């Protein structure tokens, strides 16, 4: 039987971390793009668009990510007869979940910009999208940084749920190795350190960005 040396444990964890990173990136990019759309729909004066995005947010915020993963992986094939690969299913569920939260965070940030800013921008003669782009969003971004990054850290940790549909990402790898070696403290300690190494730079980067964008 193989000896699980410290370095082998570590290497296996790092290899599994690649899935944690890939799933996180998918969630960030997909969730960011869809989330931006959801936020814009939510603040739109069009009642229908606003209503749809409200429902979307309520649904995906109000159900567990685990359930969304099940729905995407098993539910989809039941309804359509097409089997989604775990990666596609995870991408869909993570995108939906992340976009609902980011959409809501960004809506809140946009609406936190005082109404007088919209009025001043339109009094100058800017149209809706210019007002948004030149005046409102630059101010909203500043407000959104901290909650956005805070949520992305949750997403990184949340990707561990994807193990349920077959991904051997960091948490699952740790638990598999632990089953063989029974060196719980060491293994889960290492896994914890790796999570920390992924999340900590995000947090410090967000703090630096907030400082940089602070008004004089």
């Amino acid at each position, binding site marked *: 039987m193989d000896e699980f040396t410290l370095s082998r444990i570590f290497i296996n964890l790092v290899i599994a971390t690649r899935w944690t990173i890939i799933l996180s990136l998918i969630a960030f990019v997909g969730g960011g793009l869809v989330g931006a759309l959801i936020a814009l729909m939510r603040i739109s004066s069009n009642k229908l668009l606003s209503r749809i995005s409200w429902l979307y947010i309520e649904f995906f915020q109000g159900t567990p990510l685990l359930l969304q993963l099940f729905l995407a992986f098993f539910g989809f094939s039941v309804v359509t007869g097409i089997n989604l690969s775990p990666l596609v299913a995870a991408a869909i569920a993570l995108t939906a979940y992340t976009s609902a939260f980011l959409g809501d965070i960004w809506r809140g940030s946009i609406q936190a910009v005082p109404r007088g800013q919209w009025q001043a921008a339109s*009094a100058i003669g800017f149209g809706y999208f210019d007002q948004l782009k030149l005046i409102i969003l630059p101010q909203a971004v500043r407000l959104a940084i901290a909650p956005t990054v805070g949520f992305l850290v949750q997403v990184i940790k949340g990707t561990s749920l994807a193990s349920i549909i077959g991904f051997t990402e960091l948490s699952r790898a740790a638990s598999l190795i632990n089953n063989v070696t029974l060196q719980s403290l060491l293994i889960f300690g290492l896994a914890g350190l790796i999570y920390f190494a992924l999340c900590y730079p995000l947090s410090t980067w967000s703090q630096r960005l907030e400082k940089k964008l602070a008004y004089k």
Partner: protein
Amino acid sequence: MTSLQPDLNGASTATLEKSPIIVAKNVEKTYDNGFNVLKGVSLTVNKGEVVVLMGPSGSGKSTFIRTFNGLEPYQKGSIEIDGTPISHGKKGIELVRREVGMVFQQFNLFPHLTILKNITIGPIKLRGLSKAEAEQVAMELLERVGIAHQAEKYPGQLSGGQQQRVAIARALAMKPKVMLFDEPTSALDPEMVREVLDVMRSLAESGMTMVCVTHEVGFAREVADRIIFLTEGSLIADTTPDQFFNNPKEERLKTFLSQILH
């Protein structure tokens, strides 16, 4: 002088020709909650005129003045700015808005932009000026309102009076045909009121057409060509400052004056 000065001859020719630039007819507005805030208000402002709008709190002054640049929707009546109809939500309204400068009680400068950029952003994006041209115009305007040395600062670093003067410069940079002021000095500490009124006074002298909601009696007496009085959504007086203050006819106006003139 350069073209950024509003038409210097405006004042004298306007009194001769009386060419209307704001024409509001029977403007009626009811808020969503059913409150009938404007009950058919009509007003014609001629080129170069300075009109001061007074009235008790809640009489609809802000609502009325904000219909002039389409910030406030109205249900009935019509408003024309220099012959172009304007109403909220109408296509092309941005084009009319460029012609109407507005100064708010709360300044509403853009906090993420420097003073200079606050002023140049409109002319660059909407009037097609180059950055250099826009900055030159902006610096001349800042000179005129007395804060050229603050150009690189951010709004948060300026006093209220300075911010309001920047807000006036920002509106002027679009070379509007008309300037609207909604209680521009009400949010200011008393010692800063004067500096803003001085800028408004010199703007009036340069021939700019102005509609000002203000309770500054001194300014109204000395600068206004006409004072109009709005109460409960109706215009009940439209007269000269002299008549307005020294010979008021309407009971409600007398009551109002006794309150503000203590």
